[in-house]
């Protein structure tokens, strides 16, 4: 069923692109859909463009595993639209033609601005493309049963077809369609979650029996470690630097890793799940991997308001949230740890951790707001980048050129705020629904929303998966239009001044779309396994650092000069990318210890954004200009 709906959608989207192909014969048609899109369609298309894999797959996955901290992304992403509406929307429409660079350069005709704004557009678009392509692979892998890499290649090929056939026109309607379907069916999914209610033994509507994990008591006599229950043999003990202790035990011929937990002097062994690589062989939970032996989906409520074995039945919106907020509601969340065993096996253990509802429903599980000053600064830095990043994303800004006038730009932004705001409220319910229904894949939380849908039946899973796929198509299309515009329009046409007639300009855009699409495919394969919302957060930091200071100062400071703008873009890009490359998160990706990272912050915005502003002011004062800005 899922495969059929998926292919119907793909055929429809490609058919639509071919049909709209006639509208992309001119530069204006290809890059800006002729500037004739109605504001209401553009508003929903904004939502379709913006609600990417990060929003749907990443945020839901993050809420499902760390609760409210994932919702912080929803809040920050939405708040950013305020900057877009009140500060950027109308002036951008008034100044620009096809690309973000056009608007920045409108009053200067500076080669520096053209070059660096185009480079910035390319970097931000590629940073944003990576998580979308990672999401594509994650989604297509279980849906069609093909490897991650082939999923990424397939998505890349479809998107290149969409963009190359009809540019912004087809991109707009794909985004409109996707935005509409996403909001409607996410509402249906949230309705289903509320009707099912909460249970301490979720069984996915009777389809998957609830698995009760075992706890064993243990004692220490001298150096000897003993399990109270007979029949268990301790084989190995692994003590990690982080203080975590895991014990390998054998029982009735089956080996497995257990989490050793001490509370009030009582030792408990908690059953875990494990993935062990013995050479090239992958073992899951003590047996070789097979179709019948995969990691079990996890996460459930241990207690609801202090009681076990409870099924609440249907709940209202507030009742659902209030039940989860209760300090006596206990959630069994899952974490993971990796190490090498004594025998040289690479082991990843997924172990349970009980967290009370009051901690789940406020910040702190991921972002250590009660932690060290540095951890708090990291949180502040993230919230700053999310707030300031939206209005600086080139693929969002180019949507302002598809409507006829500045008033339409304003109105479409308001429609976008309504649609996006509503969807972000839904993410909290979808994420918490996944957390409490035992549907999280412990190895990859990005699929939490589609897997939640599957617990309600194959039909809803098929539709939600197809929409998630559409989500990626819509956003990637917009990103490729923005990036191809930067190459063909900003660089070839305006920076290098290569003489091209209108038809050649469109062809240059199409060829650029192929190149950018190819790069996106490659990066999507390389970055497999990263949380997509985290990666998008970084794209926001680069956009907020490289582009926003230039936009704001161009509009509000008359002394802004072309050299000031170019310098601030360079500083924003270099500092934000440099800090990300040397951050703890990226050190983990390199296979190094995060503790060795020279930059202790994961989010660079708090340093790179002010630095970019300061650079613009200083360079502008040092290079005074003659002209006057008109915004």
């Amino acid at each position: 069923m899922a495969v059929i709906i998926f292919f119907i959608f793909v055929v429809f989207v490609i058919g639509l692109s071919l049909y709209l192909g006639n509208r992309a014969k001119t530069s204006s048609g290809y890059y800006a859909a002729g500037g004739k899109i109605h504001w209401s369609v553009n508003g929903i298309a904004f939502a379709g463009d913006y609600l990417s894999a990060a929003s749907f797959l990443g945020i839901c996955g993050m809420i499902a595993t760390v609760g409210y901290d994932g919702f912080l992304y929803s809040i920050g992403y939405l708040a950013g639209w305020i900057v877009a509406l009140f500060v950027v929307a109308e002036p951008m429409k008034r100044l620009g033609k096809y690309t973000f660079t056009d608007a920045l350069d409108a009053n200067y005709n500076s080669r520096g601005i053209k070059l660096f704004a185009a480079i910035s557009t390319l970097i931000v678009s590629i940073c944003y493309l990576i998580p979308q392509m990672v999401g594509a692979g994650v989604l297509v892998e279980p849906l069609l049963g093909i490897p991650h890499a082939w999923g990424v290649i397939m998505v890349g090929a479809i998107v290149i077809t969409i963009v190359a056939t009809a540019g912004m026109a087809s991109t707009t309607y794909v985004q409109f369609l996707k935005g509409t379907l996403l909001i409607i069916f996410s509402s249906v999914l949230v309705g289903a979650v509320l009707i099912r209610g909460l249970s301490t033994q979720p069984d996915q509507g009777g389809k998957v029996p609830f698995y009760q994990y075992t706890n064993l008591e243990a004692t220490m006599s001298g150096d000897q470690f003993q399990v109270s229950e007979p029949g268990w043999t301790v084989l190995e003990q692994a003590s990690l630097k982080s203080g975590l202790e895991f014990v390998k035990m054998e029982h009735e011929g089956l080996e497995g890793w257990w989490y050793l937990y001490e509370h009030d002097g009582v030792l408990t062994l908690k059953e875990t799940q494990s993935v062990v690589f013995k050479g090239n062989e992958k073992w899951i939970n003590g047996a070789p991997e097979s179709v019948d032996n995969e990691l079990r989906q996890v996460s459930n409520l241990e207690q609801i308001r202090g009681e076990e074995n409870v099924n609440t039945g249907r709940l209202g919106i507030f009742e659902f949230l209030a039940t989860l907020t209760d300090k006596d509601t206990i959630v069994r969340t899952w974490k993971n740890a990796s190490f090498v065993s004594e025998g040289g096996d690479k082991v990843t253990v997924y172990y349970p951790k009980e967290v009370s509802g009051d901690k789940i429903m406020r910040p702190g599980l991921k972002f250590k707001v009660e932690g060290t000053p540095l951890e708090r600064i990291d949180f502040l830095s993230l919230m700053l980048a999310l707030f300031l990043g939206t209005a600086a994303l080139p693929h969002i800004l180019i949507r302002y050129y598809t409507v006829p006038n500045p008033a339409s730009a304003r109105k479409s932004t308001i429609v976008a705020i309504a649609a996006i705001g509503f969807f972000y409220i839904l993410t909290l319910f979808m994420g918490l629904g996944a957390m409490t229904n035992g549907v999280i894949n412990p190895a990859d939380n990005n699929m939490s929303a589609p897997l939640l849908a599957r617990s309600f039946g194959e039909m809803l899973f098929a539709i939600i998966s197809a929409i998630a796929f559409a989500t990626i198509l819509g956003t990637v299309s917009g990103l490729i239009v923005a990036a191809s515009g930067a190459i063909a329009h900003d660089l070839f046409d305006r920076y290098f001044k290569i003489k091209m007639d209108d038809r050649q300009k469109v062809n240059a855009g199409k060829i650029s779309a192929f190149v950018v699409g190819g790069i996106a495919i490659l990066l999507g394969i390389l970055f497999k396994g990263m949380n997509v919302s985290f990666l998008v957060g970084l794209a926001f930091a680069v956009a907020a650092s490289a582009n926003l200071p230039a936009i704001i100062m161009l509009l509000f400071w008359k002394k802004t000069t072309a050299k000031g703008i170019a310098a601030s873009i360079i500083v924003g890009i270099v500092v934000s990318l440099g800090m990300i490359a040397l951050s703890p998160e990226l050190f983990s990706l390199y296979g190094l210890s995060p503790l060795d990272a020279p930059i202790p912050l994961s989010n660079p915005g708090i340093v790179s954004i002010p630095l970019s502003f300061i650079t613009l002011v200083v360079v502008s004062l040092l290079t005074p200009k003659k002209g006057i800005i008109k915004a």
Partner: protein
Amino acid sequence: MLHEPATPSGKDPARLYKVRLGIWMFSFYALFYAGFVAINLISPQTMGVIIFFGLNLATVYGFALIIVALLEALVYDAMCRKKEAELEKKGKKKHLKSNTKKKGKS
């Protein structure tokens, strides 16, 4: 301007009014957002305080940030449209007057 926009738009007499209004409304929202971040940093425990219907401050404030954004957007649009209509009406009157004067002179 060194190159034309995709679709030319006429002169906007309400531009300055909208810029000023936008800055005010942005400032208000920025303060509201900063309040949320500040509570998290200064007194994270406060985010767990139950406000109403069993919902804590984190949930209530988070939803409020989304809802206030939409309300502000609607107010902004209504005020912009009112000013645009008002100035357009004035412009038409002025145009009509100058036309009548010109006709009178001729």
